[in-house]
């Protein structure tokens, strides 16, 4: 299982121009293998820049990016192999579709890996299956799909490379609730079957709470929190400093606790909240009887 770690990395956008911005400032972190890690932060907090360092799209100005303990920039000519192992789905990935058919488009990554035609075909069908695109869809033009389907076809293009680590930058941005749900359940399904490490970048606390095991919080180019979901969400004050908020349902639970109702405050989804409230209600009626 591949492990990404980042040591004291800094990065500048537009270095040496009047538009220079320090996007990352001495970030050190470690993506725990076999988990779903969420990276959250405000717009401009450096989270997209960070994930572009993970697969060698960007090269750090200072510090090192390690994959299984080896510096990915040790051999710059072999950076492509890092990109095959660390699959990055960019923001709005549907803009990268270009082939005549979805089949060919998904095959673009595997073909660059130099696989045999048979292997490519196998991977295309498998990847398309993960994102819920049936075999009948494969010969359609990617430009004839709906927005959500395009997004899923683009994600399949990365999954088909069978990366050890799958990174998704705002995978559900701009989709309706049903589309969001579909994308995330595809990702969860993929993760369950492949056992790979998944990193999700988002600014939606609700998504983080729902799907991630571990959460990292970025603010102004710095990593300010890093831990399990429970550890991070138990400190709403620190999240507020980064201009973020805990999930609404957790807030509700904290308010209930403040009024002296003995609820579990480690609740991040409405389903869990529902169960918790039913449990309290039953306890309550049992006592009053």
């Amino acid at each position, binding site marked *: 299982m591949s492990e990404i770690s980042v040591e004291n990395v800094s990065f500048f956008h537009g270095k040496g121009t009047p538009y220079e911005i320090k996007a990352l400032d001495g970030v050190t972190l470690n993506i725990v293998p076999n988990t779903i890690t969420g990276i959250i932060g405000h717009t401009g907090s450096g989270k997209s820049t960070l994930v572009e360092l993970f697969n060698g799209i960007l090269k750090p100005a200072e510090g090192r990016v390690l994959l299984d303990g080896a510096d990915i920039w040790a051999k710059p000519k072999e950076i492509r192999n890092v990109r095959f192992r660390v*699959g990055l789905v960019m923001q709005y990935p549907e803009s990268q579709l270009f082939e005549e058919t979805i089949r060919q488009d998904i095959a*673009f990554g595997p073909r660059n890996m130099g696989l045999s035609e048979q292997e490519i075909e196998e991977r295309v069908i498998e990847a398309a299956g993960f994102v819920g695109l049936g075999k009948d869809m494969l010969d359609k033009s990617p430009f004839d799909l709906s927005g959500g389907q395009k997004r899923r076809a683009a994600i399949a293009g990365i999954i088909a490379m069978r990366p050890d680590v799958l990174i998704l930058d705002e995978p559900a941005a701009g989709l309706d609730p049903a589309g969001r749900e579909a994308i995330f359940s595809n990702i969860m399904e993929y993760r369950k079957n492949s056992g790979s490490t998944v990193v999700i970048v988002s600014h939606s606390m609700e998504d983080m709470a729902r799907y991630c095991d571990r959460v990292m919080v970025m603010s102004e180019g710095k990593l300010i929190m890093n831990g399990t979901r429970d550890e991070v969400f138990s400190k709403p004050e620190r999240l507020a400093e980064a201009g973020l908020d805990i999930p609404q349902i957790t807030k509700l639970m904290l308010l209930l606790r403040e009024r002296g109702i003995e609820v579990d405050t480690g609740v991040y989804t409405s389903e869990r909240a529902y169960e918790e409230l039913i449990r309290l209600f039953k306890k309550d009626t049992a006592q009053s009887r």
Partner: protein
Amino acid sequence: MKNIALGQYYPAKSPLHRLDPRIKVLLALIYICAAAFCKNIIGFGVLLVSALLIVALGRIPFKTIFRSLTPVLFVMLFAVFFQVFFTKGDMLLFAWWKLQIYGEGLYLALFTIVRIFTLIIGTSMFLTYTTTPIELTYAIEDLLSPLKKLKVPVHDFAMMMTLALRFIPTLVEEADKIMTAQKARGADFSTGSLVQRAKALKPVLIPLIVSAMRHAVELAVAMECRCYHGDGTRMVVRKCRFSDIAALIVMIIFLAGIIYLNILGLVYTA
């Protein structure tokens, strides 16, 4: 990549940045005339000093200026070569085999360098470095507006130019994003033969064209929603201030001075 998109514009707060763009176009034109008319050694000295003064006024670092001069270096060297070796005069300084170098040739070469240098400083300081492309378009539209009487669609051309300029950064940014996305899928843009590299651009160009079309359609709809139909009754609220007029007057005096020095014909005249 993004710096290219914004052209040469150098954001800063300076008296030159604040000037009315229409005035700056006129200033650039007059300054070019001054550099072209100048024939006199004192005149060239004045030109050189004025060029440095303008750079200082625009608060642009000299490093940036010199970087923009490097492409013209070749032209300068070429001109100098011909001036030095092919000018005949009275002051023979050096002779060897068929090569003869005259004092006049050296003078001319020096003047050529100063002339090219000031021409570039003049245009780039007044126009590209201190004026955003959009401001420049407004200025050109305004200055050409008398042509409207001759039924020249000045406004439409200006609008087309504005839109084209407006979308350069957008498209560059998009091309950048698409290239990154394809690199993440293992696309290779930097190795292989010329044909291979051209082919490698297909995954970038197709999505880029698709998105350019989408932008065009969306923009057209947005413009129509605001009842735009380019009848030229729109206006830009920007009035010339006292400082703008003053700058124009100073520049006209400068041109007059250069011409006056020519008439005096002091010291050496080329």
